[in-house]
């Protein structure tokens, strides 16, 4: 077992964990933050995307012990975040979700796009979304939602 100290959604957390425990399983099963989802466990689908020190990472292929000393933000940790609030409303208005399983990871990735690439056009948005699989929506609503937030933030 390895000792682990980190912040999750602003809260200090200390735990003793098996080295092989993924960050995704740590937040889900040990912290009961189940908004982060597992879709593939090999880093392709993006459903597990969380922020580590403000940057999006794949929690399924990040061992929890590798997150020692970092600040993790899961989908549950964005209540006071303007970009996320705008994205949530835009996803709602643009029918950017159906079954909801990809949505938390998609929102974290979308937030990275609107904050890191404030001038992105549709082609760029589609390119940046290649790492997040959605089986339900065909992406149209998601792309429209992100573009609408980019436009609002430019205004």
């Amino acid at each position, binding site marked *: 077992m390895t000792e682990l100290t980190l912040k999750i959604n602003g809260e200090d957390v200390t735990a003793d964990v098996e080295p092989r425990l993924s960050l995704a399983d740590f937040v889900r099963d040990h912290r009961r933050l189940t908004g982060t989802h597992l879709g593939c466990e090999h880093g392709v689908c993006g459903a597990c995307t969380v922020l580590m020190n403000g940057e999006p990472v794949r929690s399924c292929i990040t061992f929890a012990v590798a997150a*020692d000393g970092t600040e993790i933000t899961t989908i549950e940790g964005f209540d006071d975040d303007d970009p996320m609030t705008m994205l949530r409303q835009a996803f709602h208005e643009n029918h950017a979700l159906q079954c909801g399983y990809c949505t938390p990871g998609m929102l974290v990735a979308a937030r990275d796009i609107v904050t890191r690439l404030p001038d992105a056009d549709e082609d760029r948005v589609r390119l940046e979304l290649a790492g997040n699989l959605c089986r339900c929506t065909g992406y149209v609503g998601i792309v429209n939602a992100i573009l609408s937030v980019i436009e609002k933030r430019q205004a």
Partner: protein
Amino acid sequence: MKSAKFDHQRMVTLEEAVAALGSADGEARIMGGGQSLGPMMNLRLAQPDLLIDLSRVGGLDGIEVAGDTIRIGARVTHARIEDGAVPGVTGAYMQFVASGISYRSVRNRGTIGGSVAHADPSADWPSALLALGGDVVIAGQDGERRMPLDGFQIGPFATGLGFEEILTGFELPTLGEGAKCGYYKVNRKPGEFADAIGAVVIGSAPRVVCGATEAAPFRVVAAEERLAAGAAEISVADARDMIAAQDPGFDDYDLQIHAVALSRAVGRAFA
């Protein structure tokens, strides 16, 4: 898909890490960004007994220009390179390559040293850096040594790194303003591993690489000679002959797409 059990040790110095590699019971691996090793471990295709965590070891994240050499630490992430942290013409080339690797959330953790040491035959850096030329910097029992990128990768997932050695960085050429670079990756979805790679860097001399070959990437001698003689394009048909001459064991389709990658990489270099 949960990894098999392993031990985990956090190192503070490079010497410590090298010693741990040497004294480990069973298989020991360096934990880099985990973006390549992580999936393999979740699939239990890799089952190391010990992962050595270097995240607290300093000196592995630097990017320094010293004359005609750029030294890049092994732990520099693809994302930093994508964001332009490497200066100059070399940096612009590397930025282009980095932006096509996987997805941003993977690029935030994946490292250039990890990628080259892991040596997945379909990965980008082994081919892209081979086209650039330069050296790999290695830490081992006897201190630091260098190996040229030429011949560093010897096969799929196999390099010239010894079992008790750690790849600590790269020394890459500072390309001049007139240097030409072109990189072409064949895949069906952005970020996917390549089906074929063509990489061309014309600095002091042309270097042309055929990559994503299911074995080590290789330099295409006839193509380099053609460019050295002043050519500004190479047709797909000629590229097929040039690649085939080096006996890569391709079927017709693979030969075709590698030839297209080479031809279009040359096209990008001269665009």
